C-alpha cells in the first residue's frame, strides 16, 4: 500500500450560528437580503443547511427554498431555488449570483407576489466556524479508513463539502488526497460523485467506506 508524501490531516470542526439583524417578510425583502447578506449567511443557508438536515432525503435542502415554500407557498420558485447543486460552486458569490438571478426572474414574471407578507419571517444567520486539528492523521489508505471511523458527521461534512469553498476546486479534501498523495484517481472520482442530495451524511460516509474497502481489497 502506497504511503503518502503528505498525510491526510483530519480536522475537528464546530459551528456557532450567529443570528444577524436582517430578516425578510416578503419575497422582495428576501431578494434584497440575498444581495446584501454576508457570504457566511449564504454558506449557512445552503451548505450548512444540507448538513443540518442530513437525516432527511426529502424536502428542500436549502433554507431559502424551504422558506419560500413553507412561508410564502410559492412552490415553483422553491423548486428553482433548490435546484443549484452546491457542489458546482467554487465561491459563495457565484452561488449568491445564481440565487439572485432566479429570484429576480421570478419577481419580474410575478410582480404581484413580491410584496405579499409571509406567514413567518426569514431570519438571516451565518456560521462561525471553529476548527482544531484532530489527533489522528493518515499516511496510508488503511490509516485513512481508521481515521474516518473517528470522524463526526459535522467534520465529515467539513472535509467532504465545505472543503470545496476552501479549495476553490470542484473536488473535496478526500478526493484531492486520494489522487495527489495516493495516486488513486478512480477512488477520488467515485468519492467526488457521491450524491449528498440523495444520501444522508451517514449514507455518504457508508459509501466512502465501501469504496475505500474495495480499494484496500483490490
Amino acid at each position: 500500500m502506497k504511503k503518502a508524501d503528505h498525510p491526510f490531516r483530519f480536522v475537528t470542526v464546530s459551528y456557532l450560528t450567529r443570528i444577524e439583524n436582517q430578516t425578510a417578510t416578503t419575497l422582495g425583502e428576501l431578494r434584497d437580503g440575498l444581495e446584501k447578506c454576508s457570504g457566511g449567511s449564504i454558506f449557512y443557508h445552503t451548505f450548512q443547511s444540507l448538513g443540518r438536515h442530513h437525516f432527511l432525503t426529502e424536502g428542500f435542502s436549502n433554507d431559502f427554498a424551504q422558506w419560500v415554500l413553507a412561508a410564502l407557498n410559492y412552490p415553483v420558485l422553491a423548486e428553482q431555488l433548490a435546484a443549484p447543486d452546491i457542489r458546482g460552486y467554487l465561491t459563495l458569490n457565484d452561488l449568491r449570483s445564481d440565487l439572485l438571478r432566479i429570484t429576480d426572474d421570478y419577481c419580474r414574471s410575478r410582480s404581484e407576489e413580491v410584496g405579499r407578507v409571509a406567514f413567518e419571517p426569514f431570519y438571516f444567520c451565518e456560521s462561525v466556524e471553529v476548527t482544531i486539528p484532530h489527533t489522528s492523521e493518515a499516511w496510508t489508505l488503511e490509516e485513512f479508513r481508521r481515521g474516518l471511523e473517528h470522524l463526526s458527521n459535522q467534520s465529515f461534512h467539513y472535509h467532504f463539502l465545505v472543503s470545496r469553498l476552501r479549495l476553490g476546486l470542484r473536488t473535496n479534501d478526500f478526493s484531492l488526497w486520494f489522487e495527489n498523495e495516493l495516486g488513486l484517481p478512480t477512488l477520488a472520482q467515485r468519492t467526488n460523485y457521491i450524491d449528498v442530495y440523495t444520501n444522508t451524511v451517514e449514507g455518504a460516509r457508508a459509501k466512502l467506506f465501501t469504496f475505500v474497502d474495495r480499494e484496500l481489497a483490490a
Partner: protein
Amino acid sequence: MNVTKAEVHVMRLDDYVPLLGAPEIDELRALAGQLSGRTVQMVNSTAMGGGVAEMLNRVIPLIQELGLQPRWDVITGGQDFFEVTKAFHNALHGGPYQARKEDFDLFLATNELNRQRLQFDCEFTVINDPQPVALIEARSKQEGHWIWRCHIDLSHPNADVWSFLRPFVYRYDAALFSSPAFARQLPIPQYLFHPCIDPLSEKNVDLDPEWVSSVLVRYGIDASRPIVTQISRFDRLKDPVGVVHAYQIVKRYMDCQLVLAGGSASDDPEGEIVLEEVRREAKNDPDIHLLNLPPWSALEINALQRASTVIVQKSLREGFGLTVTEALWKKKPVVASAVGGIPAQVIHKHTGLLVHSIEGTAYQIRFLLSNPALAQKLGEQGHDHVREHFLITSNVKRYLTIFLHSLTHS
C-alpha cells in the same frame, strides 16, 4: 437570604458513546482540550423544576469532566420577587402587564443582594434568563466573558419590561437565543443556542415496559386505548384549556384519553390557579387525566410519554419546548404549535405536525390516530433530528465552541 448551591448529578461522557458513537464524544474532548482549566460560572433562578435547571444539572458535570472548572449558582429571592419575575416573564412573552415602579425596584434590589452574596471571578460567566440579568453590574472591569443566555421568546415583548431590561443586556459580550425569532435588534452578537435534553436522564432513559404499565395503572389510564398527552407546567402560555378543547373535538370522532401532566417549579406561583381553570373545562370527563406531579416525577413523566399514542404541545408562546424534544427522542408523533423554538424541532410533515389553532390541533391528532404508519415515520425522523441537534452533548459542544470563539476574538 442564602445562596443555593444546586445539586448536581453525575453522568460520564463515556455513557453517551453507545447512543452517539465515539467520534462525537472524541470531538468534545478535542475541543475541550483547548480550554483545560478555564473557569465557568452558570447562574439561574431555580435549582429544581423547569427546563433550565434540568439542563444545567446535566451540562455542568460534563463540562467538568472535560477539564474545565464550572460552578453553578442560583439566585434567591422572596415570593414577591418571583411574582415580579413571573409577571416579567409573561410580559416578555407578550402578555398584559401594568408597569409598576415598585416591581422594577424590587427586581433591582434582589439582583443587588445576589450580586453582593455571589462571587464573580470566572473567565466565562453565563447568566440564564431575565431574573438575574442585572448581575452584569458585578462586571466592574472588562475582565472575563459575560454571556446572557435567554431561554424565552422575546419576539413580542412588553415595551416597558424590555426597555427596563435592555440596558443590562447591552452590556454583555454576547446573547444566546433558542431561536432566531427570539433575537432582538441588539448591538452585541447573538447566537443560536438550542436547549437540550439528556438521553440518559430519568426523564428520557429507556424504561422497562412493566414500569410504564405500572405508572398507567397508578393514574387510572387505560393502556388499551389511544392516549393523547401534553406534558407541561399548568401555565396559561401552554394553553392546557385549549388542549382540552382540542381533545373534546377529537372525542366526537374517535375514542381516546387525554393526559395533562404538569410539574411545578419554585419560581412559578401561578400553577394552582391555571390547574383549577383546566378542571372546570374538563367537566369531570373520566377520560381526562389531570396530573399535578411533584418535581421528582421524572420517571413518571418518561413513562407517560412512552405510553402515549400522540404527544401534543399546544403552547401559545414557548421558549423552546423541551417537552417536544423529549417526545421526539422517544420516537413519538408530535402535534405542536408553530411558536417559539418548536418549528426548529418539528419540521412540518417531516418530524411532526405544526398547528396554529385548537381546530388544527384536533384535526392533526385525528390524522395521526388514523395513520399509525405515518405517525411512526414522523417519530423516527424526529428522533434522528433530536439526536443530531438537541442532545446535551450538542449543547456542551456549543458552549465549548463559544468559549473558544470568545477567546480568539477578545
